[in-house]
């Protein structure tokens, strides 16, 4: 059965609520309304008292999550747009992220962040926040790219004892369809080879996995076989999988939708350069968004972020190096 990425997120939450009494959902408009994106549609009705509307208080939402998690619950917090998590940031990085290390007591929170750009959303409804959270100790940062991953990784996030920042990409919400997969699932923290190739490794995550795959298909027509690595989780990073891919292809193009300074692409390239230096037949390449806020106008937005076209262009340059 094929469902959307957003439906997968709803279904995962329904299942988590059904299977584990400790799970509850807290966030703005998540109750009867079903959430700004309808990711919690009908859940308040199906699980009375366990899907709770919050005031517009991101700091208190996450502080409450910490207390509830320490108190034996498994809160799922929905922030309406990832961009607004800046005002709840402190509770996540300084309270949730330090708790286990300081006290020995785990703090199992799932923070759901609708992330990433969509056309016409502008500077404050488009941001990718993974780099900010991943920088801090004590947090796991997931960036699912597929319907099956959205579903299973969200269930994983709720199950593991550590706080998880779950970066769901809004561009995939309605457009991406797929099934939930079956059989063997990758373990938490493992990357996935989304497409096998021999000429270069395109390492990426989230919505960019689909741009990279499109680019790879285009390149295939020109005889360039790109391997696409879907990181799935950006902290921890599956360095082994990345380096194994680079060892096969000799070339690395790392792609991210976030701002260019620091972040996932810097971390990946730094690790490959440090630990996989001898596998590199050419300088590693990065492709990020531009170093400005995310633009509103679709024409600007299309150029601000990497796209299948700019990925393919970079790949062509890389294989010629």
């Amino acid at each position, binding site marked *: 059965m094929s469902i959307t990425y957003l439906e997968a997120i709803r279904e995962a939450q329904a299942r988590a609520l059904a299977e584990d009494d400790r799970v509850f959902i807290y966030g*703005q*408009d998540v109750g*009867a*309304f079903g959430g*700004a994106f309808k990711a919690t549609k009908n859940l308040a009705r199906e699980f009375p008292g366990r899907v709770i*509307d*919050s*005031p*517009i*208080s991101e*700091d208190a939402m996450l502080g409450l999550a910490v207390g509830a998690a320490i108190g034996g619950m498994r809160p799922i917090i929905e922030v309406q*747009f990832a*961009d*607004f998590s*800046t*005002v709840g940031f402190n509770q996540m990085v300084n309270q949730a992220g330090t708790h286990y290390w300081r006290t020995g007591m785990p703090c199992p929170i799932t923070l759901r962040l609708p992330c990433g750009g969509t*056309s*016409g*959303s*502008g*500077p*404050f*409804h488009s941001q990718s926040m993974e780099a900010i959270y991943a920088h801090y100790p004590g947090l796991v940062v997931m960036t699912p790219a597929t319907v099956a991953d959205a579903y299973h990784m969200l269930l994983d996030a709720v199950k593991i004892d550590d706080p998880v920042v779950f970066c769901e990409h809004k561009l995939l919400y309605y457009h991406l369809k797929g099934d939930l997969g079956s059989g063997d699932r990758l373990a938490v923290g493992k990357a996935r080879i989304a497409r096998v190739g021999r000429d270069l490794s395109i390492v990426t995550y989230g919505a960019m996995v689909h741009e990279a795959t499109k680019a790879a298909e285009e390149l295939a027509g020109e005889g360039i076989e790109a391997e696409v690595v879907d990181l799935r989780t950006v902290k921890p990073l599956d360095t082994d999988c990345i380096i194994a891919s680079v060892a096969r292809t000799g070339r690395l193009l790392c792609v991210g939708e976030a701002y*260019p300074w620091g972040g996932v692409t810097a971390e990946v390239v730094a690790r490959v350069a440090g630990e996989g230096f001898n596998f590199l037949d050419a300088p590693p*390449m*990065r*492709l*990020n968004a*531009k*170093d*400005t*806020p995310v*633009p*509103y*106008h*679709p*024409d*600007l937005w*299309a*150029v*601000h972020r990497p796209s299948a076209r*700019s990925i393919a262009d*970079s790949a062509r340059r890389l294989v010629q190096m």
Partner: protein
Amino acid sequence: MAFVEAEPTIELLSVKALRFMLVSRVLDDKFASLYRMGKIHGGVFLSRGQEALSVASALSLQPGDLYAPLIRDTAGRLAFGESLLDPIRTYLGSALGPMRGRDGNVHWGHPRLGMYAMISHLGAMISVVSGGLLAHRLQGRRSTVGLSSVGDGATSTGAFHEALNQAAVEQLPLVLVVANNCYAYSTPNNRQFACKSLVDRAVGYGVKGVEFDGTDLETCLRELGSAAARARSGQGPQLMIANLLRLCGHGEHDDASYVDPNLKTSQVGRDCLEVAIRKLVDSKTVTAEDVALWKSRAIDDVERAVAQGQREPGPDPYREDWSALSTEALVERNWPQ
């Protein structure tokens, strides 16, 4: 601020206000229709039911004052002095608009003219206005007033609290207008706060608080006029709670089916535009024909401005400088792209 005292002046002011309200409503209708036709990038957020409060906010200000409008302040922005083209260009992403296609929908402003360009994070603009007021104070310009507009939902943010407290400590001439439209997106007041009225917050900050009917234009003009006058005369921050109802969805994607039908038929559910027209016609301040004429002019103006906006080019990504810093020497252009 003589106008709030003498009867004739409030009538003139009401007429002025009404005309901005009419334009704002016509513009809203146009945006709604453009949205339905798929001609707008992203969401559309309307001011319906909030025009009286919004316009009165702006009209309480004087040249040189500071104004931080929010999501439902189309009327106030126009009354503050901006061109009809500004919202249109912003929504349409015109390169000639104040945000040059970089930012959109409700996020425009003219900071050089004292009208801030809001960011989305609720509550975040209030302390910005305080900063502007402090700047004026330090520059010896003591008669400035600053007005910041927020919704009931924004009162739950830490930013709201910190800013109001800060303004109270500094005794800044800040008028903080809360449009309590009963909902924050789908969240009703009783899930947002537990006090009887938001005006009960005033005493806890040591500021003057006033609660009033946000559906009545004259009340809005009087109350905000007085508040600005108090602020201007050194009486510190003014917390102004206006009760009304959002007569539209949160955005045009939202059918607002969650709104309590009883609210719609209660005092707060009145359409401030209809109320204003009725009162001004009843009092013979204006005639129904005047209103019809102004409305048809507004329709013409809006149509013409939209047509112009639609002809204007969007931004050209290949001619953008893609630089978030004004100091050219510090812009890094060497990231591989």
